[in-house]
């Protein structure tokens, strides 16, 4: 070892140190990003490793508008839970809402703007830039606007409300088009019409399930998909959990037991489409028995004369004694509430049926009182609550397209090629439209036919707001904010429209550069109409506290009194339902119902929803058709036998499921499967009953009568093993689910009485 003096030594150490350091740094910089344990020395503002950050937003999985709180860790969304402050869902959330995470992180999301290169539907697209895509579209729109052919532009969107809807309206108006259509398959057109017709109100009332003591539901699956299922579930739960005498009673009237039917204390099977007649039979009984003592009794008596319980019994298949008992209970229990929806509202007599339900509420004195039907106040601020396009409007749109009246169709999130029956020929109509643009995030059946795709952010990556319709009896609004940065090269729907607006020169009326700005501005207006206390805090404070709470409300209530006029009373009546197809050739009535897992099909690309067993049948990853046990026996069919379900307009194939709670001449199929596109989890799986529906309409609204199709069953001789998680769904006397009415079961001593509290000693 040579002699080294101190200076040399330090030099060497220094060089060595630097060298080592340099080497280390070099190695560090060459590391694969995933090798870093914690990726940032200086982390982005909104996250600290190991600590969750919560964001409030609004769920967009259905139109109920529940408030959500999303737990994020290190910039990734982990769990969607209900926002405890939101009065609609009060901290609770349904499964589909929680599966929103799989919308955000779905492997089949469209990640870039795309331009079609091959034939339409051939799925050949090339990636383009946003500049390019927006530029092309803006150019076309500008041309049309300049040529005063703005009306040849159609914007077909899923249901929206709040400021996005308002933005759509402004945009289309500026363009010179009146073809702004919102189209959700499950929009309750007939309910709106019935409320307009009877109460003269253009928005839905608040149905106070929580405080009612007897709920009569005519077909409405209020726990699963009617208007605001979570709020109704909360009400149901609260009602059940009250003390014994106060416990609410629930009666469900429908030809096929739904989830609400299973939760009900009594399930009454009325012949499909005759629910309204049943309601009027009850009304007749209430008037004739003198329960209703209003001044206009005579008018009512006259109007209801054709609906005596005996006549109604014949038409509905429900016994006279049941009708009168239900009527007596309904009138005698105070408060009571009648609601209508589901298949019952989707017959040719849907509006009349729902008017009959309103009649029941009126006669029993439920209107305007707690536990009954309460009128909602007008929605907040200037936000719009657009009515949606009915089936008839969609047919007219298709016709217009065929006539060459549509040059550009912009689709936002809705999937009419899947949800409209084949008889509507909507897909063919698209062929006649030169430019189809889609703003959707997924390759659903409609988007694969697009020429230009400008993919939107998922709702968890977007700014927005929501004013739930039936709400909670007072004004409620919520802002949704992005919970994560956009994962891909997508933009918020609102931002896309704003960019287009900029390019087309609409800046004067649509001045915002981002959706965040637009929403904030809109809320400023709401803020300005607030009370002095709110105004005192200043807008920024208001905005921050709004985001923190996730919800805003105002306890303005609606009107309480109501008097029907003579004309309305005289016009009360429910015609017999009309069906397509003759009873001889098509002996069964098809009852398609919104699936709890997929709703109208939108949830089919979420693996959690595919893997979750159907609540009533426990089937997973497939479709089925429900048959009454006697019917199945007569046809010689067992579970898993594949049958063709043929209507006058087409056929679908599905395996049989033996269902103990469905009428013998009715067969039911869940809606939601049978996608031909829509990603790896949904594609080519199951059958879509909407395809074969006949184009029957309810005359007033033009609503598709989804439950009016007659079908026949043709056994194919083939058989599959239905994939389901339940074993044998019978208790076999083992007393597993115990009820208070249990008598004569083998019960252990420990089981029947209250359980003594034992502490370990």
């Amino acid at each position, binding site marked *: 070892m040579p002699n080294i003096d101190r200076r040399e030594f330090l030099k060497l150490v220094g060089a060595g140190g630097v060298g080592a350091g340099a080497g280390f740094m070099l190695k560090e910089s060459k590391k694969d990003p995933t090798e870093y344990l914690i990726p940032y020395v200086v982390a982005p503002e909104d996250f600290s490793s190991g600590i969750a950050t919560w964001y409030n937003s609004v769920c967009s999985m259905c139109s109920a508008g529940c408030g959500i709180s999303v737990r994020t860790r290190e910039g990734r969304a982990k769990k969607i839970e209900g926002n405890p402050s939101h009065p609609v869902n009060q901290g609770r959330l349904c499964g589909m809402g929680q599966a929103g995470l799989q919308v955000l992180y779905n492997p089949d999301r469209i990640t870039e703007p795309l331009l079609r290169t091959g034939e339409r539907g051939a799925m050949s697209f090339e990636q383009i830039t946003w500049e390019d895509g927006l530029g092309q579209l803006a150019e076309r729109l500008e041309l049309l606007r300049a040529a005063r052919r703005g009306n040849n532009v159609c914007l077909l969107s899923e249901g929206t409300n709040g400021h996005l809807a308002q933005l759509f309206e402004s945009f289309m108006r500026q363009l010179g088009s009146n073809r702004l259509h919102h189209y959700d398959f499950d929009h309750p057109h007939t309910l709106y019409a019935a409320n307009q017709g009877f109460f003269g109100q253009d928005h839905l009332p608040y149905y106070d399930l929580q405080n009612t003591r007897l709920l009569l539901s005519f077909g409405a699956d209020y726990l699963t998909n009617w208007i605001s299922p979570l709020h109704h579930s909360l009400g149901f739960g609260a009602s059940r959990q009250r003390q014994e005498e106060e416990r609410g009673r629930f009666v469900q009237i429908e030809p096929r037991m739904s989830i609400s039917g299973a939760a009900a204390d009594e399930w009454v099977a009325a012949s499909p489409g005759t629910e309204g007649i049943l309601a009027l039979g009850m009304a007749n009984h209430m008037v004739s028995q003198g329960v209703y003592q209003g001044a206009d009794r005579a008018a009512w008596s006259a109007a209801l004369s054709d609906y005596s319980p005996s006549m109604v019994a014949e038409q509905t298949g429900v016994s006279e004694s049941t009708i009168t008992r239900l009527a007596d209970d309904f009138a005698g229990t105070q408060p009571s509430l009648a609601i209508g929806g589901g298949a019952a509202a989707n017959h040719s007599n849907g509006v009349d049926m729902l008017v009959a339900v309103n009649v029941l509420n009126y006669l029993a004195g439920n209107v305007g009182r707690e536990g009954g039907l309460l009128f909602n106040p007008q929605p907040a601020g200037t936000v719009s609550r657009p009515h949606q396009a009915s089936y008839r409007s969609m047919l007219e749109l298709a016709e217009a397209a065929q006539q060459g009246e549509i040059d550009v169709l912009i689709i936002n999130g809705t999937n009419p090629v899947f949800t409209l029956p084949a008889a509507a020929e909507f897909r063919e109509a698209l062929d006649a439209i030169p430019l189809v643009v889609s703003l959707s995030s997924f390759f659903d059946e409609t988007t694969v036919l697009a020429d230009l795709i400008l993919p939107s952010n998922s709702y968890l990556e977007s700014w927005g707001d929501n004013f739930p319709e039936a709400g909670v009896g007072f004004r409620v609004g919520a802002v949704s904010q992005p919970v994560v940065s956009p994962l891909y090269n997508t933009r918020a729907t609102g931002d896309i429209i704003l960019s287009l607006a900029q390019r087309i020169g609409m800046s004067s009326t649509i001045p915002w550069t981002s959706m965040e700005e637009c929403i904030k501005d809109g809320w400023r207006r709401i803020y300005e109409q607030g009370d002095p206390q709110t105004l005192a805090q200043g807008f920024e404070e208001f905005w921050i506290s709004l985001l923190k709470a996730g919800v805003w409300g105002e306890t303005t209530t609606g009107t309480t009194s109501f008097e029907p006029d003579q004309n309305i009373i005289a016009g009360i009546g429910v015609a017999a339902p009309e069906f397509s197809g003759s009873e001889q050739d098509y002996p069964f009535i098809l009852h398609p119902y919104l699936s709890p897992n997929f709703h109208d099909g939108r949830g089919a690309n979420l693996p959690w929803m595919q893997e979750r067993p159907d609540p009533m049948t426990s089937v997973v990853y497939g479709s089925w058709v429900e048959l009454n046990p006697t019917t199945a026996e007569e046809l010689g069919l067992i579970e898993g036998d594949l049958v063709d379900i043929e209507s006058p307009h087409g056929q679908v194939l599905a395996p049989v499921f033996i269902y103990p709670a469905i009428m013998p001449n009715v067969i039911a199929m869940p809606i939601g499967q049978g996608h031909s596109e829509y990603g790896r989890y949904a594609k080519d799986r199951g059958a879509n009953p909407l395809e074969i529906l006949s184009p029957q309409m309810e005359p007033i609204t033009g609503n598709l009568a989804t439950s009016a199709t007659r079908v026949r069953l043709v056994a194919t001789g083939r058989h599959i093993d239905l994939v389901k*998680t339940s074993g044998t769904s019978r208790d076999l006397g083992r007393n597993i689910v115990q009820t208070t009415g249990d008598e004569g079961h083998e019960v252990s001593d420990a089981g029947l009485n209250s359980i003594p509290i034992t502490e370990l000693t």
Partner: protein
Amino acid sequence: MSLFSRFMDGWRKYRKPGYYDEFDYHWTMTVDLDSCTGCEACMTACQAENNIPLVGEEELAKGREIQWIRIERYWEGEYPNAKLNFMPMMCQHCDAAPCETVCPVSATYHNQDGLNTQIYNRCIGTRSCAVYCPYEVRYFNYYNHHWDSPLDQQLNPDVSVRGKGVMEKCTFCIQRIRDAKDLAKDDDRRRVRDGEVQPACVQSCPTKALTFGDRKDTESQVYQSMNNPRAYKVLDELNTDSSVVYLKKVDA
């Protein structure tokens, strides 16, 4: 102590679940069958919270579901008087758990909070605990599971992802219980209050059919439920001493 008294002391402790004289907490869940609508929101919540794998259609066809909480269906009667009763079934965290006695490597044991815990990295996969459980709430990982990217970005970092060969089951969201206990400890070393910790299923239930709490706390909801005349336990005749109390459905 003399040898004999030491022996007797050991014997006495040995007979208790987990050898504890007293639990710190005694977590209990109540299921109100009258309020359960079978909507299965609890199932999705559990799946999201606990990184439950997607087994896929093929595996489900073979019967290999993994559902820490599941809804059982029991039809009663025939058309037109058919009724459907739903029963949520999850690990009952039995104080006299049959599964705890049979695991040869003690991968499942009773902890100081009255929970039946499963230690994934000790499990060698004999599956005898699944055989011994009368409620059949234990699920085995037959394969390593895979999430199509980027679905794996959703995985909860507070919960391990289980590999093949390992048994899993409901833990009453022990990660949430631990967080709540930590918070309570930081906050002046107090006890966790009723309602402060809710497993994912309880939190999401739209009808509030599920409640959760510490039955040592006499003010808690679960304690009140246990005194409800409708209270019973499933398969109580097997003397498993479960920690899940069911409230009978009301026949009205």
